[in-house]
């Protein structure tokens, strides 16, 4: 093509074209990342995210942040490092939560009739905001990984506490003590997920009682830091513009 020819007829048209592409890019990025992130998250931490009786003080707190920091780190690696857009993590979580809420309402409730207060998704937004803000203020991948990654893990349980606390109230049922969330699982039978599959409160860590959640969150924060580093570089690679050589 000729460099002297113009693709647009005026500056106004050029601006309009540019803005239109912005919206198209945002839409595509949002929904494709949503799809990839959601299938990743539901198959690596999904069971803890699906049901309130899986949302325990140990494994939910440990697993959910570790597996969920992946896509935010990768998308930040492109949106911030190429375009200085400080919302990579938030846009990932908005996408994930949109996909999850639509599903929990239309399918978990709408098709298999589990009430939404039994199958609502975890809240990942506080960690995402902090991750983006740390990156924006520091401009450093290392600081974001260490401070932001740690905050990601540590904030998960407090960020969900207002929602989950009422369901962790102890109740006595048929002579057994359990949480209200356990009782929900007892009544809303999931035939394909028998009780022996449920991974909650395992091991002797639970004997520490009130310390279980903070210890789990701290461990989760540590691993989240490592995962952030790894996925930052994954993101850099996925954002590449390389071609294989033509034949």
């Amino acid at each position: 093509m000729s460099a002297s020819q113009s693709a647009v007829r005026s500056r106004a048209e050029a601006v309009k074209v540019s803005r239109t592409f912005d919206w198209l890019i945002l839409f595509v990025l949002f929904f494709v990342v949503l799809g990839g992130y959601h299938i990743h998250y539901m198959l690596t931490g999904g069971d803890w995210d699906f049901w309130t009786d899986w949302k325990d003080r140990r494994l939910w707190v440990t697993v959910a942040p570790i597996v969920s920091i992946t896509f935010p780190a990768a998308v930040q690696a492109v949106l911030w490092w190429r375009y200085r857009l400080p919302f990579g993590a938030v846009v990932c979580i908005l996408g994930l939560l949109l996909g999850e809420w639509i599903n929990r309402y239309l399918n978990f409730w709408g098709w298999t009739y589990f009430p939404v207060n039994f199958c609502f998704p975890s809240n990942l937004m506080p960690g995402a905001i902090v991750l983006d803000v740390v990156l924006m203020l520091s401009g450093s991948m290392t600081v974001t990984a260490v401070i932001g990654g740690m905050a990601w893990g540590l904030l998960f349980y407090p960020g969900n506490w207002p929602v989950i606390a009422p369901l962790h109230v102890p109740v006595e049922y048929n002579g057994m003590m359990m949480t209200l969330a356990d009782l929900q699982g007892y009544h809303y039978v999931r035939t394909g997920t028998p009780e022996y599959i449920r991974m909650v409160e395992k091991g002797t860590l639970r004997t520490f009682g009130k310390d279980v959640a903070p210890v789990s969150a701290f461990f989760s924060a540590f691993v989240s830091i490592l995962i952030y580093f790894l996925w930052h570089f994954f993101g850099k690679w996925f954002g590449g513009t390389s071609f294989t050589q033509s034949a």
Partner: protein
Amino acid sequence: MAATTESVRADAAEAPLLNKKNMILGSLLYVVFYGWVRWYEGVYGWSAGLDSFAPEFETYWMNFLYIEFVLEVATAGILWGYIWKSRDRKVMSITPREELRRHFTHWTWLVMYGFAIYYGASYFTEQDGTWHQTIVRDTDFTPSHIIEFYLSYPIYIITGGAAFLYAKTRLPTYQQGLHLQYMVAVVGPFMILPNVGLNEWGHTFWFMEELFVAPLHYGFVFFGWAALGVMGVVNTEVIAIAKLLKKDLA
């Protein structure tokens, strides 16, 4: 270069840069079709989808599966064949305005890919979780699988393949070889479909149970990561479009 080429029709210059009608109709196609599919699941999932040995299962679900197989193969063959057959053989000679127009058409395909990936990887995949954690399966071809694996996945494969082929056959940007991240973004999610083989084989050992985080499912996770390749496509497109508009935006 010449102001006109064999590849550009005389009236092309007057066509809109972004064909909004195509964009809206394409979007509606996915949303309305999948709305109908969800309605079908709601009506016939519980009433005819619980026992694969029942005659109504054959009527409402296996026939659905056979029909979708035929339609998918036909659609892929016709669509991909048409895009390839009608390729521009002088793609490096098009005018900048025509190139911009084609970028918009390419983005229309990418928007469709966004819809298709959302429904396949998010909507119908998590839906499969609640179905199998609730209903004990007695076949690989459960109602949720007939929709998820054998309808929504092929649809995003067909859509992604069409977007990739369009870019490769009509845009100068993609003529220097095969765009690695674009291939990953299209081929990776495609590999989720063959991975169904592993999934179904594995589930024959645990037919009664559905643990979504089981390692058996990690193949889907690995290939799901490939969707991030869309970031490479975005970056490539931004570079190409910026090059086209740079002079006028300066």
